[in-house]
Structures are given as C-alpha cells and as structure tokens.
C-alpha cells in the first residue's frame, strides 16, 4: 500500500480527525499495543544495578538497559526484568519431511511438525529465511500455540517429532524447552535445527529434553563468521563438541558458498576437526547455496564443488557425508560404511528404500548409527 492509498483508506474508514479518531486509535492499538508479543520472564539472565540486565543465553551476552532489546530482537528488558516476547508466538508452522531439516539419520521418511518464532542471534548475509529470522516479532504475523497444544497438534497430525527450525531456536529457548518437555511426555521426539550460538548452561539443559540437534557450521574460519555471519566460530565448535559428547544425536550442515567458504583446504581441516572432536559417525551435509538476502551476486554452488567437498570429507575418514539441495544426486543417499551398499535411498525429500534393520545394515550387519525407530 502506498502513501496515497493509505491516506485514502484512512479517510474512507472513518479515520479522519475528529469523529473518526476513536476508531483510528482502536486500529492502531491492534497493531501497536503489542498483542502479538508475549511477556514471559526469560531464563538465563542476570539482574544488574540500575535496572540493567545481562543476558546469558548466547555468547553475545547482551547487557541491556530498561526498554532495550537484545541483538536477537525478541527479548526485552522491561523495568529490570528480562522477558521473551515470542513465547508461544509461532510465525511459521508446517509439517515437513524430516529430511528437509535435514536429518538423515533420524526417523527417515517421517513428517516433523516444524515451527519457529521470529528472531535470530546472528545475521548471516546469506540467510534463506531472513523474512522471519531477521525481523522483530511485531513485524510478522504470529499464531498463538501453547507448548501443550503444539504437542497435541503433532500427535494429531501423526508426526513422531517436533522440529524447532527455520529461524534460530536458541532465541525462543523457553518456548522450545517447555514444548519439548510436553512432547516428550507424549512420546514425541524433539529435534533442533540451530546455528549453535548458545551458551553451555542452556545447551546442557536443552540436551536433557531433546533427541537430535543439527548444527549449521557456516564456515571454518573466524574471518568468515565475522564478515558473513556476524558471530563467533569458537562457541559453535564448543556446541558441536558438547552435543557430540551427549546422548543426543548430532548432524552437521555446511552450506557451501562459492568463493566465500568453499576452499578445499578449509573443508579438509573442518572434516579433520569433526572426526577428531565429534566422531567419524557424525553425518555432515554439504548443501548447495542459492543467492538470497544480502548475497545475491554469487551463483548457486557448482555441483563439482559439492562433490569435491564430499570426497574430501570422506578422504578424512567421515563415514556419512551427504550432498544437499541437489535433488536426485547420489550423494543424498546413505551408504553402509561396511559393504558400501545403499542403506537409505533418497530422492529429494523422498525415501525410496530403507535397508537398515535394528540399526544395522541389512546386507552386512554393520551398525549404522542414528534414531531409526
């Protein structure tokens, strides 16, 4: 709507000054008074003198005065108490194949109730979901979905898992945690898709209620994280270590962006690091980049680059290395590290066949780790 149309509409709707003012106020209140925002006290913060607070949810450790919001834009200091503004305020809710997250070793071929609120604690210049992640909660439509209701919805829809995804679940930690607790009681699994910018204490608590975590490792140099992610690499690596040491299933995605993070020496270094610190069994997905958000001047990742990355990681001893965002490519399937046969055949998000029984290759009996049932 342009200015002229707005002014016409304002007048036409009885919004002119005088008689129309009360109804105008009502309309403005509907958008401006914050009915779209929750006010649930946040966890992981410290109160400071002079009504200041220090957020301890993520490595940014935002220190905020009264009426200020953190970098994420969804947590606000109101009078010296810190609140999450997005508790139960879901801006995206879908039923997706779990392969879309992607999780390739978790309940293959099943749907996941997938949800997000607004917000993110980094600002990747190549964000694929920036319309909901890089905005404040007032700027997107949101549904009210209480944690218990989310669990019921998943159950009713026949989803064996709930995925916290699309934006950055860390910034809606309280809602994610409470939903996961309720889902778990119903026997529904919880899977998290995150950039891994989260402090140790909340991560530890999260790992007690979820089943799988996929971490986006967006590059393997601090320079890249500073310039294109506006974040830190070190805490992400620490999060990967922590999840790997826990009983929670871990997968890693590396979005390969032409010229920015596609150097094979860095990818080799990354693969070595994953093998050493997380384990050879951790699946690593090399995903194709598509121009988006603030990086529109680069082409999609050439297939040859993705294949090189996969080959490099396999050479370094990783057992399950995938190619993502290239439907129909052989690199989407799971191969048994014992016999080399196809254990799970995928085409895009579809599962063509599963040859895993009780966690082992049907042909040779080699264990294939994951959550299979």
């Amino acid at each position, binding site marked *: 709507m342009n*200015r002229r*149309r707005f002014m016409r509409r*304002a007048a036409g709707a009885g919004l002119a000054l005088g008689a129309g003012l009360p109804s105008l106020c009502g309309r*403005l209140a509907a958008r401006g008074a914050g009915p779209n925002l929750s006010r649930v006290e946040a966890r992981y913060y410290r109160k400071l003198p002079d009504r200041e607070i220090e957020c301890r949810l993520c490595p940014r450790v935002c220190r905020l*005065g009264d*009426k*200020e919001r953190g970098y994420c834009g969804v947590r606000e200091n109101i009078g010296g108490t810190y609140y999450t503004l997005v508790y139960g305020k879901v801006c995206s809710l879908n039923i997706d194949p779990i392969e879309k997250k992607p999780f390739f070793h978790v309940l293959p071929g099943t749907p996941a109730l997938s949800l997000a609120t607004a917000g993110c604690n980094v*600002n990747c210049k190549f964000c694929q979901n920036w319309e909901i992640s*890089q905005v*404040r909660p007032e700027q997107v439509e949101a549904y009210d979905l209480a944690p218990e209701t989310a669990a019921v919805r998943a159950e009713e829809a026949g989803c064996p898992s709930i995925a916290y995804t699309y934006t950055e679940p860390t910034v809606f930690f309280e809602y994610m945690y409470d939903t996961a607790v309720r889902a778990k009681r119903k026997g529904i699994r919880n899977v998290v898709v995150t950039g891994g910018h989260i402090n140790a204490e909340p991560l530890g608590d999260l790992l007690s209620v979820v089943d799988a975590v996929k971490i986006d490792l967006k590059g393997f140099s601090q320079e890249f994280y500073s310039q294109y992610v506006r974040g830190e690499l070190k805490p992400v690596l620490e999060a990967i270590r922590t999840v790997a040491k826990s009983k929670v299933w871990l997968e890693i995605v590396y979005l390969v962006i032409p010229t920015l993070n596609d150097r094979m020496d860095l990818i080799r270094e990354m693969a070595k690091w994953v093998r050493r610190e997380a384990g050879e069994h951790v699946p690593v997905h090399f995903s194709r980049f598509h121009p988006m958000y603030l990086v529109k001047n680069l082409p999609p990742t050439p297939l040859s680059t993705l294949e090189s990355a996969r080959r490099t990681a396999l050479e370094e001893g990783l057992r399950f290395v995938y190619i993502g965002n290239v439907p129909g490519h052989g690199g989407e399937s799971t191969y048994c590290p014992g016999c080399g046969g196809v254990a799970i055949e995928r085409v895009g998000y579809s599962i063509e066949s599963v040859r895993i029984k009780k966690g082992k290759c049907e042909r040779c009996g080699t264990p294939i780790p994951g959550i299979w049932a």
Partner: protein
Amino acid sequence: MAASRVVIVKSGNVWTANDTPDPAVMTRMYARGFSLLTGERDDAVAVSSLFRPDDRVGIKVNTIGGRAISTRPEVALPLAGWLGRNGLREKNLFIWDRTTRELRDAGYATSAGRSGVKVFGTDTDGVGYEPDLVSHLNVGSLFSKIQTEFVTASISLAILKDHGLAGITAGLKNYFGAIHNPNKYHDFRCNPFVAEVFDAPPVKTRHRLTVLDALVVQFHKGPSYHSRWAAKYGGLVLSLDPVAADSVGWTIIEELRAAAGLPTLKDEGRAPEYLATAEKMGLGRARPASIETIEETVA
C-alpha cells in the same frame, strides 16, 4: 571551506509550573534557531530556504525511552505547528517513529486524518516497511514507508542521550528507528552502522535538518532514564550538518559528565566513533575546529 554552523537555543522560561515545556517558549526557540541557522529574519523565508511549500515533511522522533526520556510531544508539536504557520501545509507534516505504542507511551496522541499534523508509527495498518531490502555498505535493511513513500523531506528531531553501546544517541542514530532491524547494528559501538544507515539513500536524500531535544539530557547510564544522571539542560540544538549537530551534542554530554565528576566517554571506552566515520564518509563535520557553534538564549 566554511565551518558547519550549529545553533544552541536555550530559555530559562521553557519549563511550566507543571514541569513540562511551554509550547509558546518552544515556538520562540524554533523561530530563533531557524533564523540563526539560515540567516533569514523572516520565519517563512527561513522555512522556505529549507523546504519546498509542497514538501511532505517527516519529523522523526525518538520515543523508545517512554515519557521520561523521549523526544517530547511538547517539543515536536510546536515545531510542526510553527512549520505549518510558516509555509508548509499541516496535512503534509508527519511526526513519526517505529511504533504507535512507543509514541503513545511517550505521551503522543496518534492521528492519521486527512487534515492536520499526522502522528503515527510505522507499524500502523497500511504503513509498514518497504518489501525490498536496501543493501548499502554493511547495512541490509527494510526502511519504513513513512521515510521512503510518505515524506519528501526529513527532520531528525532526536532526544540527546548517553548510550551504553554507541556512546551517544542523537540525530544520526535516530534513523535506526527508520529501519526494521536496528538490533543488528549495535555491534562495534554501532560503528560504522550509524553512519551507514544515514548514508543509505532513503535517509540521505531526504534529510534536511537535525534538531536535538536537549531540554533534559541523560548524560550517563543511557539510553534508559535514570533521574540521577539526567540534567535539565533546557536547550535545542539545530544544524543543517547532521554530524556537527551530534558532535556538539557529544560535547554537551561531556560537559554534563564532567560537572558530575564522571569520566569522559573516551575514558570509558565508548566514545561515539561513528561520528568520525560519518565525517570520513562526507556526511558532515565531526571535529570541533570545523564547527561554528552559536548559542543564544530567548525569553
């Protein structure tokens, strides 16, 4: 090259018995400030030297601090009224900020009727942000349609405050309220982001004038209000040079800090370095030596 002129207008009579700014005194302060700034004695001529008669003028206020420490309605409305009596059409004047809630919390009555001065937030139904990102240097943001579509000229009518991260918040940083994602631009003490948001075409092509509401200045522990560190300075700071205006604002804050026995912002490691960046980008003058400051008191 001539120095950038910054005008400080003060009045000992600005506060009413209710401790609110007196609109009549504010009007006199604007009249004198515009005259000193433009060199024109006649109010209408002074206005016409900055705006075309058919300009739609946005008066961007900063209301994030609530009633206690925002651009006050008693400061914004007299400006709009005075402009309306001196060549601009009231219906073409827009007092605005990010949200209607913040405007109301700061004491504004919102209105968007066909006639008269309009007061509303970007979040008003039918307004919102442009759908297309503006990618400019290190900034990638959606700009308020009020800034891009509704207005043809812009005044940054900012509150002058200390800012824990940026050092100070004044006229330049006020335009963070014109983008959808200001929370993403507080790293590195907001440098270079404050300068780069201002430099983006939706702001730079429309900005005409900076006015700092320095009636009460939060000189420490800002941007939140703390009465202990808020001083009644009783002035307006006006300039056509947005960087010079903020630079003088910084000086005022340092003077108030020194009077209170506080260290300088530099000593606290939070000098507003974005001002030097803005100067390097050619947006104005930051160094005191290249600024001509004129201070006057009106009755």
